């Protein structure tokens, strides 16, 4: 169940951050694209959470898992809970940086694509089926986000500087994408996709004329339930209605 939650929560929280863009994107086409990506990721999170609930066998449905856990029980990587802008670092508030969001979208999409490809062979047929459906979606996300990374990296001097700055912010958190162990037959250890992810990311950076920051020793542990200070603020918002109206039917 933990393995499935690590994926599910990463999709869920990633979608939550994407949802904050709605109505505020640089062009309307991107309002649509970011919303659409969030919608796909919510779909993946729903399928994965439902499956996790079934594996747990305690009768928790997708919403109980999505909205009624405590922070320490969420297993998403810290990368996706970071605010959409690094400008207001400590309080989960503040601004939207399209450079940061675009780079994160590409990083997560490549990673999900690689994981879902391996999950096609999972001995857990439900997980394999979820992966098969999700794979088409994340391939499109990866393509769309990569196009933007190249456009903004190899655009103007300003856009390149912004992308480079956003990359410096995100890069230490990428380490966690390769940290969680696998489950025999069920799903690969995340490190099994590391080499391929780094190869693809390297190619993308080259195409975008961006240079990789120095590797960092930071090892975030969101997948073990140790989050950043941003997570609590995100959850306060996300869980609010379920918490404020116990027993509500929506």
């Amino acid at each position, binding site marked *: 169940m933990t393995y499935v939650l690590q994926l599910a929560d990463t999709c869920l929280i990633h979608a939550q951050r994407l*949802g904050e863009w*709605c109505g505020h*994107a*640089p062009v*309307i086409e991107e309002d649509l694209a970011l919303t659409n990506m969030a*919608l796909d990721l919510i779909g993946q999170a729903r399928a994965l959470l439902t499956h996790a609930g079934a594996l747990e066998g305690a009768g928790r449905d997708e919403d109980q898992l999505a*909205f009624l856990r405590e922070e320490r029980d969420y297993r998403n990587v810290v990368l996706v809970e970071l605010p959409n802008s690094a400008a207001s670092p400590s309080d989960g508030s503040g601004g939207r940086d399209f450079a940061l969001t675009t780079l994160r979208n590409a990083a997560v999409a490549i990673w999900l694509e690689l994981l879902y490809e391996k999950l096609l062979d999972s001995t857990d047929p439900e997980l394999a089926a979820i992966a098969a459906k999700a794979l088409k979606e994340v391939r499109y996300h990866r393509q769309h986000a990569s196009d933007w990374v190249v*456009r903004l990296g190899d655009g103007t001097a*300003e856009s390149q500087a912004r992308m480079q700055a956003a990359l410096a912010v995100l890069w230490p958190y990428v380490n966690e994408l390769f940290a969680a162990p696998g489950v025999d037959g069920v799903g690969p250890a995340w490190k099994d996709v590391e080499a391929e992810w780094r190869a693809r990311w390297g190619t993308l950076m080259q195409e975008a004329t961006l240079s990789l920051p120095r590797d960092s020793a930071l090892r975030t542990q969101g997948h073990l339930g140790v989050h950043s200070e941003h997570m609590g603020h995100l959850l306060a918002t996300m869980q609010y209605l379920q918490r404020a109206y116990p027993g509500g*039917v929506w």
Partner: protein
Amino acid sequence: LAREEAFEARIDAGDFIEAKDWMPEHYRKTLVRQISQHAHSEIVGMLPEGNWITRAPTLKRKAILLAKVQDEGGHGLYLYAAAETLGTSRDEMTEALLSGKAKYSSIFNYPTLTWADIGVIGWLVDGAAIMNQVPLCRCSFAPYARAMIRVCREESFHQRQGYESLLVMMQKGTPEQKAMVQDAVNRWWWPALMMFGPADKDSPNSEQSMRWGIKRVSNDTLRQKFVDATIPQAEILGVTVPDPELKWNAERESYDFGPIDWSEFWRVVGGEGPCNRERLAARQKAWNDGAWVREAAMAHSRKQATKAQAA
């Protein structure tokens, strides 16, 4: 002048006008104003609903809301494209919106204060929009009419989803949820009625639009139709509308309803509604913050074009 007469004759005959056809300047301007205003409304309309995406109470409702807002953005794009066929550009239209020159539907200057507002917007606001837009599917300008057909289809879907979400809360929800729904109806009812525009006697532009087949039904007629269609739905839902004068008129086979507070209507249209400043500021900020992105995209495509030429 002969062209003008021929144009009028086509209109009178119920013909549809295409973008490539000759048309009087005033007809063109009226349409550009109306279509771009409609497009702006879709775009600004993403804000009050977007306000609840991060707080939707279940994943299903979050997905529905995301999809709805995405549809609205799509309508906006579709309508901007229809307006562009009349010889304006999206940048010009955007500039008019951000400078405050162009209007958008005043309904989006009201805040979404509770989750029930999302359902009520679907039910009442989309409901009123559809009532307004169905006649536009027969608008004399064909690209607009075609856009409206698609828009109305999706809006109907949104309206049903909104109503359904209210029904769930009213039929299966807690007392707090029911109170939340009633409160939302209380706040949105009058603004929804105002969506049909000023009373016919105070609507000077309407006549010409009617003659040209841009507008097909008068404001007051549509408003009455909306009330008549909506009250039975409210009864099924189990909510009341905040109008002590509302009552069935057996003679007219229609509902009588109380007077609209036109001073509020004009105040909001005039820029002093609860959220006018914030809606415009949000769009301005999105546009300004996004300038570097748009510039980069253009610079990149120029680079690509140069490379392609060199190759």
